[in-house]
């Protein structure tokens, strides 16, 4: 656990720092990847920043609306740097709406955009694991296994390390899959040109496949790691709410993937 990086008089919180770093790395990877797939990398950059900005703004406004009396007494608090006074659901909803509006205006295709942003999501997932390791969040249950780590008064499963390992494996696996996919596409490209009349072009690279594969793998990883967590929200019978949520997400993504595969023939 390494929550603070002390640089002279500056105390930098490692958790948000690792998230910012992962977004930056993810965007660099997204730019390279989108160029290879013929996507507009500038539009993806703009989309990301608009979503981030709107997310932060929306998160603060939603939080202020929910705690109106406190903000009436200190209106300047609307502009504070405090991460604790952000509403995550409000932030997510605002980012989503802003991203959808920008996507429409810029003429981006929904599934292609998600495919293009998948490297960013995959790197951010690694960053999330690192930030949790730094802050000691999302900690594991007690264990007697030899690789247990001393954390919060007990020897625990290093769930953050499991999470980082899985996220890295997903990132590398997807990278490999994309390379194979692009190679396969370049082989079939000439055939596609000749079959354009038959509509084969529209089916050539099924948009959304990469993103859905990432969602399935990440949800499966979360579902697995959650089973070792010591801070899970529990449903009756000791069922972990996080696992149920991950299962639903995984089922939905698998269902969509199956539909896409069927459409592709």
């Amino acid at each position, binding site marked *: 656990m390494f*929550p*603070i990086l*002390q640089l002279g008089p500056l*105390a930098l*919180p490692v958790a948000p720092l690792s998230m910012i770093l992962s977004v930056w790395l993810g965007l660099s990877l997204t730019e390279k990847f989108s160029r290879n797939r013929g996507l507009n990398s500038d539009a993806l950059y703009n989309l990301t920043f608009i979503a981030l900005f709107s997310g932060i703004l929306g998160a603060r406004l939603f*939080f*202020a609306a929910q*705690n109106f*009396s*406190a*903000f009436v*007494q*200190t209106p300047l*608090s609307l502009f*504070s*740097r*405090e991460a*604790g*006074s952000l509403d995550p659901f409000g932030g997510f909803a605002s980012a989503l709406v802003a991203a959808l509006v920008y996507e429409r205006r810029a003429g981006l295709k929904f599934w292609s955009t998600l495919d293009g942003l998948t490297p960013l999501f995959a790197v951010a997932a690694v960053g999330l694991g690192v930030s949790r390791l730094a802050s*000691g969040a999302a*900690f594991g*249950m*007690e264990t007697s296994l030899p690789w247990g780590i001393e954390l*919060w*008064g*007990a020897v625990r499963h290093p769930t953050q390390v499991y999470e980082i390992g899985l996220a890295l494996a997903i990132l590398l696996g997807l990278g490999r899959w994309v390379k194979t996919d692009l190679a396969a596409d370049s082989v079939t490209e000439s055939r596609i040109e000749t079959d354009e009349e038959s509509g084969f072009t529209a089916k050539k690279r099924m948009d959304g496949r990469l993103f859905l594969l990432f969602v*399935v793998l990440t949800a*499966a990883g979360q*579902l*697995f790691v*959650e*089973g*070792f*967590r*010591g*801070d*899970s929200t*529990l449903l009756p*019978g*000791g*069922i*972990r709410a996080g*696992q*149920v949520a*991950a*299962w639903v997400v*995984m*089922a939905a993504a*698998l*269902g969509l*993937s*199956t539909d896409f595969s*069927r459409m592709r023939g």
Partner: protein
Amino acid sequence: MDFRQYFRQNWGSLLVLSLALAWIWASRAPEGATTGGQIPAPRAGFLAPAFSLSTLDGGEIALDDLRGQVVLINIWATWCPPCRAEMPAMQRVYEDYHEQGFEILAINSTVQDTFSQLDPFVKEYGLTFPIPLDQAGDVTRLYQIMSLPTSFFVGKDGVIREVVVGGPMDEALLRTRIENLLKEGQ
């Protein structure tokens, strides 16, 4: 499409989802596995580690004696600018919520501060809440303080609800957290 055909086409996905369901069942949390609140640790969701310190006005204060009240444990030093910056807001919320069952323990990390500067500091800011003195650094170590100020919002049950590392804390954040904690169990 009949079930058999559907199964034949999607057996891979169905297998994955079934295995996932089996894992959800197998990894159900055993009794007490996720109740961090029973173990003392300086972390949200855990019991706030107990301590007893002498205060600047010559008294003695113990965290356990404040069970049933909402407590803000703030660890600070006079030389730390964000610590100084958040004191006026802390004093205002103390005046507004103390009567409702809110207490502040503004623990001075005396082990890394100058004792003679404490009294003038308290007078300058007009602080009326207790100032426990961590002269040996025991609480600073117990709460694994890596940066000043660090604040712990403790609920009426003695469990830490939130840790804020660094500062100055925003007054609206202070008010919302305190109001929410005061509402708990009502």
